[in-house]
C-alpha cells in the first residue's frame, strides 16, 4: 500500500489502466495473437492436424503461386472487394442523403434498411438462394417469365454467380452504412448549408464542395470497414453454393472459403496457413492503401 501511495498521479493512472487492461490483453494474447503468430510458423510446415509438423520452408508458398485455383480465388476476392465496396458506398450514401431530408416515416424506413443487418447471414443467403431458382420456384425468374423475358441462370452461371452472391452481401451491409452516413450528415452544421444558400450555389456544388468533403472521416471509416468485410466474405458464398461450395467451377470462391476448404476438407494445415498469411497481407495492404489515399491533408 505504501508503495502505491508513493506513486505520482500519472503513475497511479497507469497502474489502474493496466489493471483494467490486463484481462483483455491476456485474452487477446492467448486467443488472438498467439494463434496468429503460430499461423505464420505453420505456413512453413507440413501438417495434417494430427501428425507431426515437418519444416518445409517456402514450399507452401511456391505451391500457392503455381496453383491456378489460388489465382482464380485471388481474382474473385478482389472482384468482391472492387464491386462490393464502391457499390455499397454509393447506394448507402444515396439512401442516407435522401432519408436525412425525409421526415415522413423516417424511423420506420430507417428500421427497414437496418433490418437486413440484424438478420442472420445464413437465413438471408437461403432466402436469396430461393429468389434465384429457376421457374416455377425462383422469385426473380418467375417475375421475368411473367413479362416474357428469358430465364437467367443466376447461381448456375460462371459469369452471373459472383454478382448474384454479392448482391445479398451488399444489401446486408447497407443498413449499418446508412446509419453511419446519417450520423455523419447530421454532424455537419446547418449553417454551412445556409451560408451556401445565401451564396447562391447549386445543390451539386453543395454536395461536392461541402457535404462530401466534410463526410471524409465517415467515408474513410465505411470504406475500410466494408472493404475488410468484402475481403473476408464467406457465409453468403458458402450458404448459397452449399452443393458445391465456391462453385460453379470456383467462380464464386473467395479466399476465406479456399482456406476453409484446404484446412478442414483437405487437412492441409500448412498450405491453409500460407493462404491466411496471404489474406492477412492483402487486408493489411488494402487498408493501408485506403488510409493513405483518403488521408486528410
Amino acid at each position, binding site marked *: 500500500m505504501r508503495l502505491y501511495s508513493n506513486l505520482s498521479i500519472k503513475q497511479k493512472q497507469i497502474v489502474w489502466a493496466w489493471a483494467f487492461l490486463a484481462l483483455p490483453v491476456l485474452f487477446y494474447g492467448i486467443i488472438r495473437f498467439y494463434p496468429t503468430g503460430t499461423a505464420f510458423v505453420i505456413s512453413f510446415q507440413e501438417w495434417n492436424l494430427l501428425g507431426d509438423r515437418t519444416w518445409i520452408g517456402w514450399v507452401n508458398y511456391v505451391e500457392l503461386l503455381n496453383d491456378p485455383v489460388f489465382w482464380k480465388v485471388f481474382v474473385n476476392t478482389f472482384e468482391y472487394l472492387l464491386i462490393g465496396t464502391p457499390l455499397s458506398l454509393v447506394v448507402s450514401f444515396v439512401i442516407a442523403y435522401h432519408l436525412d431530408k425525409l421526415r415522413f416515416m423516417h424511423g420506420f424506413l430507417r428500421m427497414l434498411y437496418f433490418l437486413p443487418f440484424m438478420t442472420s447471414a445464413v437465413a438471408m443467403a437461403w432466402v436469396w438462394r430461393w429468389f434465384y431458382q429457376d421457374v416455377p420456384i425462383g422469385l426473380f425468374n418467375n417475375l421475368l417469365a411473367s413479362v416474357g423475358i428469358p430465364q437467367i441462370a443466376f447461381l448456375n452461371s460462371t459469369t452471373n454467380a459472383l454478382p448474384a452472391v454479392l448482391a445479398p452481401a451488399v444489401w446486408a451491409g447497407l443498413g449499418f452504412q446508412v446509419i453511419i452516413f446519417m450520423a455523419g450528415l447530421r454532424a455537419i*452544421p446547418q*449553417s*454551412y448549408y*445556409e*451560408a*451556401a*444558400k*445565401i*451564396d*447562391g*450555389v*447549386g445543390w451539386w*456544388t453543395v454536395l461536392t*464542395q*461541402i457535404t462530401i*468533403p*466534410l463526410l*471524409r472521416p465517415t467515408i474513410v471509416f465505411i470504406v475500410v470497414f466494408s472493404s475488410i468485410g468484402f475481403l473476408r466474405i464467406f457465409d453468403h458464398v458458402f450458404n448459397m453454393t452449399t452443393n458445391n461450395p465456391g462453385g460453379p467451377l470456383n467462380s464464386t470462391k473467395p479466399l476465406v472459403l479456399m482456406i476453409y476448404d484446404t484446412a478442414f476438407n483437405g487437412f492441409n494445415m500448412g498450405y491453409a496457413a500460407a493462404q491466411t498469411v496471404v489474406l492477412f497481407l492483402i487486408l493489411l495492404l488494402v487498408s493501408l492503401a485506403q488510409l493513405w489515399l483518403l488521408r486528410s491533408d
Partner: protein
Amino acid sequence: MANLSLRTLTKAYAQTEVLHGINLDVADGEFIVFVGPSGCGKSTTLRMIAGLEEVTSGEVVIGDRVVNHLEPKERDIAMVFQNYAIYPHMSVKKNIAFGLRSSRMSRPDKEARIAEVAGILDMTHLLDRKPAQLSGGQRQRVAIGRAMVRDPAVFLFDEPLSNLDAQLRTQMRLEIKKLHQRVGNTIVFVTHDQVEAMTMADRIVIMKDGHIQQVGTPSEVYHSPANTFVAQFIGAPSMNMLPGTLNGGGVRLASGQSVGTIHTSTTSRPILLGVRPDDLTLQGSGPTVVTGHVAVREPLGAETLIYVTTEAGEVIAKADGRSPPDVGAHVTLSADPANVHVFDADSGSVLT
C-alpha cells in the same frame, strides 16, 4: 446599396405566432442593431430578411423589391453566422471565393475582388491558410470577407461576436464599426448584448416576445426609454424601479417617501419611478428619492456600485471609487428630476 423595410411582418410555426407584425424602415447605409433576450424573435426576423425562413404574412422589401418569394441568392444580401460557417476543408482564399461562385464575374475580376477584400480586412498573408490555423478573430474576419466579397446591398450579422472572448469581442466590435464607416453598406446586426447594441448601432431595435419595444438611437433608448422593459434592458446595472403613486405632479413612493414635483401630469395613478444608478447621487442637489443602508459594495475601480436596502426595496447606486460609504452606513440618495422616468404601473409605458 439599398434601404430595407419590414411591413407588418409576422412569423408563425404551426399555430404559434412568434413574431407579431413588425414594422421597420432601415435607411440606405444605416447600421441597425436588433437586441433583446433570447426568444424575442430577433434572429427569426434576420433569417426572414435573409430568406432562410418563410414569411408567414407581411412583406420584406429590399431596395424597392418585395423579396418574400425570392431565394436568398436573389435578395442581394450576405450573412455572417454566429459559428462563422467557414468551411474547414477550404483555404481562406477558397472560403472567400465561395461567395463569388455563382457570380458571373470573370476570373481575373474575381481574383482582384478577393485581393481587395483581403486587403481591407488585413488578411492578405492568411489567404493560403486553413481555418484550423486561424484564431477566433481571424475566422470571424474570413466570414466577414466572404460576405463582403459579394458587395451586397444589405449585410446581415447573426450574433457574430458571441463566440469570441471578451477582449476580442471589444476589438471586433470596433473593427466592424470601422468597416461600416468605410464601405457604407446597410447592416442589420443581431445581438443579445446591449453593450454591443449601444456601441455599434446607428439605431437600436429593442425586441421582446415578438414585438418591437422601441426603435431609436443609442442615446434615445438610453435617455428616453419607451417602457420599463427598455429602461431595464438597456444600461448596466439596470435602472431602479420604485413603485409609487403620482399625485398632483409629485410622487409618493410606496415606502412613504415623498419625492417633489417631477411630472406635469396631475391625474392620480399608480406608477413606477425609474432612476438609473448613475443618476442616484449620494450628496446630490436634487430631491431626496430614498434613504437606506448600504448592504453590499461592488468596487469597479473608477466607481463603486452600492446596493442599498430601502423601504422601497433594494436600490443600486453608483458611488465614488475612492471613498465609497461603508457597508451598513446610512445613506440618502437623491436625483435630478430631469433624469427621473415615470412609467405607468399597469402598462409599463413611459408617462410623458
